């Protein structure tokens, strides 16, 4: 159980990640704001709380792994790695530019990236391979992978789900960022996949639910997932796409939208205000 001080620290950091996501995207340029912002608390809880991860030892074979299968949301991971000092802060201004290290999707040229993702549906398979290898090498490391609710339509994800269950991979935790919006609209209208929890259970997974914007419960649920033995766990995190930036919340418009100067300023003001309100 994390103490109140620790939770407050991570909550603030989550808002810092959002501010950095907005700064990275900048004005007048398309950027995956929505799906990155929905992950801020999850990523903050992992990198600043839960994970065994030393930013000075990015290649430590026993580090916990974190990868974002819905690779377009990597901005939030960049922000966390900047905060940890693994990525130089000045790289943020060079997002998606020639000569910069921060690509549109996770790339091995960037410090701290564990895999190439971005073609949706592949991350859970990669994470499964990692967890199998780590177990074989008797490493205590855990593997965390974020998947999207739109992404769940990819059949490969369910192939991976079956494989991970087949091998009882209890070092593997998938976090489903259930923000209920995909690229072109609400998942309910575009491609509804009902009874998700039942589906995962039927595929042999343990299922936990959490409010994906509440740091305390996120830390608790991550601990719970660690404690479950004998099979993989999926944490269904209910989130808001674009969380924290009012005009980007719950809309596909900022799946990969561009902000005007006014929107950019407003986003940073709102985020700062929310950070200030953190108890």
């Amino acid at each position, binding site marked *: 159980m994390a103490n109140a001080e620790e939770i407050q620290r991570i909550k603030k950091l989550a808002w810092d990640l959002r501010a950095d996501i907005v700064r990275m995207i900048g004005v007048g340029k*398309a950027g995956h704001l929505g799906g990155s912002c929905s992950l801020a608390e999850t990523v903050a809880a992992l990198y600043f709380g839960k994970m065994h991860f030393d930013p000075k030892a990015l290649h430590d074979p026993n580090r916990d792994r974190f990868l974002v299968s819905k690779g377009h949301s990597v901005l939030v991971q960049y922000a966390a790695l900047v905060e940890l000092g693994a990525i130089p802060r000045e790289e943020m201004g060079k997002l*998606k530019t020639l000569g910069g290290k921060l690509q549109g999707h996770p*790339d091995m040229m960037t410090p701290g990236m564990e895999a190439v993702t*971005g*073609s949706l549906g592949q991350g859970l398979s990669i994470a499964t391979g990692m967890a199998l290898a780590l177990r074989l090498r008797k490493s205590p490391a855990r593997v965390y992978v974020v998947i999207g609710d739109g992404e769940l339509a990819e059949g490969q994800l369910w192939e991976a789900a079956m494989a991970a269950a087949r091998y009882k991979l209890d070092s593997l935790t998938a976090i489903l960022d259930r923000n209920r919006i995909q*690229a*072109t609209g609400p998942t309910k209208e*575009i491609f509804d996949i009902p009874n998700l929890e039942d589906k995962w259970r039927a595929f042999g997974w343990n299922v936990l639910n959490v409010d994906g914007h509440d740091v305390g419960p996120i830390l608790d649920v991550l601990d719970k997932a660690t404690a479950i033995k004998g099979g993989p766990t999926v944490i269904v995190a209910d989130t808001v796409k674009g969380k924290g930036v009012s005009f980007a919340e719950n809309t596909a418009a900022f799946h990969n939208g561009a902000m005007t100067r006014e929107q950019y300023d407003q986003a940073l003001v709102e985020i700062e205000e929310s950070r200030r309100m953190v108890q």
Partner: protein
Amino acid sequence: MTSPNLRSAYGASLVRLGKKDERVVALEADLGKSTQSVMFQAEFPDRYFQMGIAEQNMASTAAGFALSGMIPFIHSFAVFASGRTYDQLRNSICIPNLPVRICGSSAGLSDFGDGKTHQGVEDAALMRSLPNMTVLCPADSIEVEQMMDCMLDWPGPVYFRINRNDLPFVYPEGEPYSIGKVTRLREGNEAAIFGSGIMVSKALEAAKALETEGISTRVINISTIKPLDREAVIRYARGVDAIVTAEEHSIIGGIGSAVVEALRGVSHAPVEFVGVPDSFGISAEGYDELLVHFKLTSDEIARTVKTLLKGTEKCASVL
């Protein structure tokens, strides 16, 4: 008035086909706003199928439609439409030679910001290697319309490489179109440039620049990458001292390769490729900047022509 935007022209053409023929259906994988299949959705909601982010399933589902008398159009980014679905295209669609139309949108480097995972610079090579597959790469939006008009009758599967952007009009006014046609857009007798897609207009610019230096250059549009009109390629390659191919694609397996394959067995001038070297793309702030990075420019085409011509001079003097 045709929009210069290839995607808009595609979407509008699809609607036109839908009005003409009830067999036309469209399948989408959560990129309809990008591919412009949304235009068809608005007009024919009953014949539009949102398949979710599941391209492989979409491809084989289209095979089912085609086997049941329909003409399905499937949509995604080029990289996923060709790569993610490769085995489904090969087995469900190409082996039985079904009239499925595959729209590979945002082809080449046109999705400049998203980087390697999203930039399709190998799709033509993949698609060209599939027996029965027709591979089309329009040079402007008029050609998109012309190609789409052939889609009701053309037998077998077709892959379209569609760029994201507005492109200059290059298609000769009033020129009748048919799939397979290799069109000469400019006359010239010293060098020949075979271009496809966005590189056709750049080849025309290069030819203009070369003319000011006294080099007479012909420009040929290869918009049907497969089946390639071999006779035409040989004819247009004849009588020049330099041949350059230009494409927004890997130099492995694209039109450069196709032209050299076509010219095999006949004597011809030296050939050089302008294209993406054997590498993946990369994220950039803008499309033009990325094209410059990969030397996909009219300057590079002109420079390549001149280098080849110098080389042949040297050869001549050595001989």
